[in-house]
């Protein structure tokens, strides 16, 4: 079956991503750098990524570059800080005798296009203070908010989604 | 880590599991009970890793690894069934 040129390069890129991820998982699992273990790991991840790399075509993973790596590291740091803040927030609301909650369900919009970017955004929203993704359809997300600050869609988008979206937009542009 | 601290940590986690079980017994609807099991799964994974440390066996980490991947499958099956609507 003949392939167009962009599709072939896309598949090659997916192959390299999958190969490195599988190799890192193998190294963490065995925790040894003996050459026998290492070569078996390389062989296995080569075979698996040759078989499976076709299945990830529709995810739309972008090519790698220095800027994207820098923004990914910044995104990870921001995410971790937000997770810690979220925990302190939930702990305060649980321990407080009167339970200061004001729950509600709001709708927000996103400008991201790829499915994998939306998935990362939804999972990050789940782990950040007071918000939880209930459903997703196209570019609309349904959010449960434990302490509603704004019922308007644009304001809610600015408060909830913007702090991650500005990183993800660069990474997946 | 001394034995006393380990036992105190394990006891706190066991009491946490007890709280989840109370929610499972009281929960008015089926999703409430599923949430209790979901919370308990994560607690149990952490408990298995800590228990492996207390017994000083490297092999015990594999059980936590398998558990963290497979309990997820059971929960997603339950959620799919609830989603179809009865």
């Amino acid at each position, binding site marked *: 079956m003949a392939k167009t040129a962009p599709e072939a390069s896309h598949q090659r890129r997916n192959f390299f991503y999958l190969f490195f991820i599988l190799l890192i998982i193998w190294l963490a699992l065995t925790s040894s750098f003996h050459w026998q273990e290492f070569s078996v790991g390389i062989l296995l991840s080569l075979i698996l990524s040759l078989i499976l790399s076709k299945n990830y075509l529709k995810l739309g993973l972008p090519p790698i570059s220095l800027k994207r790596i820098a923004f990914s590291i910044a995104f990870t740091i921001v995410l971790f800080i937000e997770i810690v803040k979220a925990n302190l927030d939930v702990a305060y609301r649980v321990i407080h005798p009167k339970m200061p909650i004001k729950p509600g369900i709001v709708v927000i919009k996103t400008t991201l296009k790829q499915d994998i970017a939306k998935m990362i955004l939804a999972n990050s929203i789940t782990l950040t203070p007071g918000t939880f993704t209930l459903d997703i359809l196209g570019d609309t997300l349904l959010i449960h908010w434990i302490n509603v600050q704004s019922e308007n869609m644009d304001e809610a988008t600015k408060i909830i989604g913007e702090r991650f979206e500005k990183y993800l937009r660069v990474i997946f542009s | 880590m001394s034995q006393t601290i380990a*036992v105190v940590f394990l006891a706190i986690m*066991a009491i946490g599991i007890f709280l989840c079980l109370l929610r499972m017994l009281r929960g008015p609807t*089926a999703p409430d*009970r599923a949430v209790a099991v979901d919370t308990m*799964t994560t607690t*149990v994974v952490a408990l298995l890793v800590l228990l492996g440390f207390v017994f000083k066996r490297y092999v015990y980490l594999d059980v936590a690894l398998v558990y963290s991947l*497979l309990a997820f*499958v059971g929960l997603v099956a339950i959620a799919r069934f609830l989603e179809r609507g009865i």
Partner: protein
Amino acid sequence: MIFVVSLLTLLMLSAAIAALIFKDLMSAVIASCMVSLIAAILFYFLQAPDVAMAEASIGAALVTAVFIIAIRRTKRYEE
């Protein structure tokens, strides 16, 4: 340590009794999932990690899925 083991045994017993008395079969499946979770920890305490691994994979994933398929073929509530 004996406190933790006895507490976990009591929890497992109460979850098993709950699985018996629930009228909603879906809740009973969730309770039996919880029983196998605690059983895995108890096998761990008895120094049998292989049995714990089998219990974890079969009890939490496989048996739950089989029960759910069975409930879908029949009905959910017990009279």
